[in-house]
């Protein structure tokens, strides 16, 4: 988090708008979630400092041109030693062996989501439970590998008759597993491990044991990036090796260990330069596999995993079922695909698209006609006068931000939009929340919410999350239009949000264009990409990379691919800090 005290070569005269100062001072003071300074951040909302000077997200010139956030000297380039996530483990198994046992996902440890992303490296104490799960996963894969139905294709030699079989197997598979060629000593060690099963009645158990050993090796489970010292970036940066670059690209785009072809490219030196990395990235972005895999970025950014635990009241919403749950997710991802990969796609349309993609399961929620062809997905343009807009009013997003109680639903929907599109994480103050008075007959959800805004301490956050959420109160628990709130009273979606400089709106369709133009949105998009790519929250030292991505967005009408290009060319992607520091992350 920036404050005027610790950074500010920013030209104050170019600050976006004088009135925004108070809002951003508030964020700086206590109501936002920036991770760089744990412990020092108070949780209690603070009344905005009227004359507070700020920067950070506010440092956007009024003309909307590129922000002038400086690169810190030197940038942090901090890189955690990252453990494979569950998805990464399964995907890597497929690269190693051409498949994976169907039970594998269930055996592997689940990943803790941080900011919606399941590949975060910040909290990774490697407890015994995880060690046992990795033990069982390795065994499941190894048993699958030596199944008589497929072992010839995978092992490519017969350990019963070929004395070199284990050696050739670990040399070939180990290169994929460790994401680099094995050292001679490493091959010998694996061969020696396999030899423990020499007297086993089944000769393939040697292959099994070698496979287990590789899959439990730290070289497989962790993404080692020792890097190499280079002259051009000084003592605070080491350059990632070609193989490490292949891994970064592969995990970014495919959430997997690199393929043999990508390792070949690394070996040839093709990934030694920024241009080479960019060219490889360009090639990868053209592939359907990459586009499918990058959906995980949108899943994390938009917190779509929350949909999995949605349980609308079965009496009131009998139409909701598992088919609808997956259709809701698919709808959001189809719009994301469209905006990310279609030529001219504009990520801001996540907020303002006047269309979506539906099938017959979702059509009734929109009052749209069905086709009778259940699986057919089609573009649906919102009729004139509709308040629907972008992902904000998609049924899945509304459903996953619905609570058992009307007031809380409104708050959740507001908090979600702030968090996802403005990187404004609203925190509750610790404890001692005054109880709301019991509702009186005739009081709407909106009336009840008004209590929050009487106490200055509560209002500091509720003044923006409540009106934001009320804009989406015209939709029920599964995202269909509703005229009444949870207390049976007429819905009123109108509002304004002074803290965010958002003027009067009658509903989502008038709110969304104002969000779209808000300067926090582009920065937030870049931050979300940063979090996904680097598995950690951005800090002060990461402004170079974040700003480069933000600039790329702004200069390309918010092209997703342009943002990714800026990412892979950034120093943060190609270099790392030399890791002498003890970060206290463990």
């Amino acid at each position: 988090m920036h404050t005027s005290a610790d950074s500010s070569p920013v030209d104050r005269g170019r600050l976006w708008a004088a009135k925004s100062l108070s809002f951003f001072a508030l964020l700086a003071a206590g109501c936002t979630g920036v991770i760089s300074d744990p412990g020092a951040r108070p949780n209690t909302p603070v009344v905005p400092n009227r004359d507070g000077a700020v920067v950070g997200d506010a440092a956007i010139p009024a003309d909307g041109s590129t922000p002038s956030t400086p690169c810190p000297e030197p940038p942090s380039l901090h890189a955690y030693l990252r453990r494979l996530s569950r998805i990464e483990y399964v995907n890597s198994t497929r690269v190693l062996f051409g498949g994976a046992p169907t039970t594998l996902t269930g055996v592997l440890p689940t990943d803790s989501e941080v900011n919606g992303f399941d590949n975060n490296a910040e909290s990774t104490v490697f407890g015994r439970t995880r060690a046992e799960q990795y033990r069982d996963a390795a065994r499941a894969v190894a048993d699958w590998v030596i199944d008589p139905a497929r072992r010839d294709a995978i092992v490519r030699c017969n350990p019963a008759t070929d004395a070199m079989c284990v050696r050739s197997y670990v040399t070939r598979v180990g290169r994929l597993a460790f994401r680099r060629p094995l050292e001679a000593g490493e091959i010998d060690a694996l061969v020696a491990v396999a030899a423990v099963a020499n007297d086993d009645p089944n000769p393939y158990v040697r292959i099994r044991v070698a496979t287990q050993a590789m899959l439990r090796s730290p070289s497989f489970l962790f993404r080692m990036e020792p890097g190499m010292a280079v002259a051009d970036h000084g003592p605070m940066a080491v350059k990632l090796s070609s193989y490490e670059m292949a891994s970064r690209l592969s995990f970014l785009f495919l959430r997997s260990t690199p393929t043999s072809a990508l390792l070949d490219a690394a070996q040839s030196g093709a990934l030694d330069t920024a241009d080479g990395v960019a060219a490889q990235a360009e090639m990868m972005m053209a592939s359907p596999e990459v586009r499918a895999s990058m959906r995980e970025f949108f899943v994390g950014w938009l917190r779509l995993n929350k949909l999995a635990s949605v349980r609308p009241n079965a009496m009131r919403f009998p139409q909701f079922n598992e088919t609808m749950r997956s259709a809701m997710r698919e709808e959001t991802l189809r719009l994301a695909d469209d905006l990310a990969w279609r030529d001219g796609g504009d990520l801001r349309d996540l907020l303002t698209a006047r269309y979506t993609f539906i099938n017959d399961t979702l059509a009734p929620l929109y009052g749209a006609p069905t086709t009778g062809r259940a699986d057919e997905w089609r573009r649906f343009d919102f009729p004139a006068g509709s308040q629907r807009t972008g992902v904000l009013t998609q049924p899945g997003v509304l459903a996953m931000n619905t609570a058992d109680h009307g007031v809380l639903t409104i708050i959740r929907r507001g908090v979600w939009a702030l968090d996802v599109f403005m990187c404004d994480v609203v925190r509750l103050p610790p404890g001692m929340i005054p109880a709301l008075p019991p509702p009186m007959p005739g009081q709407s959800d909106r009336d009840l919410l008004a209590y929050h805004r009487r106490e200055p301490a509560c209002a500091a956050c509720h003044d923006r999350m409540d009106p934001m959420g009320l804009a989406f109160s015209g939709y029920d628990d599964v995202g269909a239009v509703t005229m009444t709130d949870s207390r049976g009273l007429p819905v009123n979606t109108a509002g304004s949000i002074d803290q965010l400089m958002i003027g009067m709106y009658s509903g989502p369709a008038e709110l969304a264009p104002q969000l779209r133009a808000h300067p926090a949105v582009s920065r937030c998009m870049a931050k979300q990409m940063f979090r996904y790519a680097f598995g950690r929250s951005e800090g002060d030292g990461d402004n170079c990379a974040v700003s480069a991505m933000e600039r790329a967005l702004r200069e390309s009408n918010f092209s997703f691919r342009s943002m990714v290009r800026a990412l892979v060319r950034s120093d943060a992607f190609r270099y790392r800090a030399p890791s002498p520091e003890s970060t206290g992350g463990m």
Partner: protein
Amino acid sequence: MKSTRLNRRTLLRGAGIAVALPVLDAMLDGKGLFHGTAHAQTRTPPKRLFTWFFPGGVDPGDWYPDTYGTGYVMKPSLTPLAMNRAHVTVLGGVNLNMNTGDGDGHGKGTGCFSTGAPLTPTASTGHSIDQAARVDLGMMGESTLNLALEGKPCCFTAGGVSNVADVYGEISWQPGGAVVAQRDPVMVFDSLFGSLPPTDPAAARERRYETTILGYVRADITRLQARLGASDRQRLEAYLTTIRELEQQIMMMAMEPACTRPDRPTSAVMGVESNRYTTAKAKIMMDLMAVAAACNLRRFGSFMLGNGSNNSGCASRRILADEIAGGRVTGRDRATAVELDEHTAAHDGDTPVRRYDQIRLYKSYHMTLLNYFAEKLKSFSEGTSTVLDNTIIMAGSELADPVAHSHNNLPFVLVGHAGGAIPGGRAVQCGNVPVGNLLLTLLQAIGSTRTRIGNSTGTIPAILGR
């Protein structure tokens, strides 16, 4: 699962075989498990410590006694424990006192109630009491037993929280991260007793393979650590620690267990999804925890009934309704309808009156389960005492008064006697002390010599009857 009685002779035989093995060597050398020599008559039973988490706070008026001392009147929420009153210590006046660090009401409470240390956005900055016990009193390679019933709340963002699931779904911590709980009873069993009986020849072969693989991984970690910077090395060190634990575990498995091997749970026995908070699963997990304690396989650990923030919706409502209808939740009017799930009851039921009404029902259910665990520990005798006598269970929740989401006067109940250190049978007004004081008192009661944990400023002698 069969109820298992400790057999002193098998216990000794197990210990005798183990003399050459490091872990039991250490156990025998006066670290607290088997004091001095391995003679049955002089054996002092180990002291054990478990945290036991129940979600959602309490209705203060139905929980805290009006007066404290040995003659206190147990309030209805606690009456499921009445039959074990002599083993119970009800505490008042313990505050979380966590004005720094991250987290909302639920997260901060869950992440800090057994650490007394603030949260960062992703982790705790201290040890939880079970981990502190292991650090202070444990042997190299000794594991804690950390069990939970529910999955972590995936993907929290709504409701104003820190976006980190661990602080809602884990209660055992080391600085930097959670000690992730086991959630599958079959896995728990296998890690305690092995999936095959120790005498099975295939099991012996597999143990040999596994030992070789573990040796390889251990050497590989050490080799690679030398090439990495300090922070990366530290991360690998955590993996290395688990490898050492698995090595100890496999050595233990090669031995005949110190007590009768219970039946391996099956999914049919569970009758539930492996990742759900149900009565059946709670009991199976507590059975395993009790037998692990009785067999001296684990001395320290944590048990987490449910997550304070999980909106398990109809699930928890239905479970509780079934338990009440079946007469298995005691001390409550069966006519009272269960209308809200736990988190909703704690949060946003229509009126405070109705919320407290629901919260009280849930507390009776939680305390009925806690009483089950106490009974289970009591069913194992150790010489003239029971395992419960030599254990201290620290039961607590992430909230005090859920309607206010407050952390002052957190509800704590102690069950057991920590080997005689804690007399029980009383309610203790601790007088607005930070939670660290409670943690420190309990750690010292089981033999730790530390003088601080988390936000401790001292101890609470009244818990020890002083």
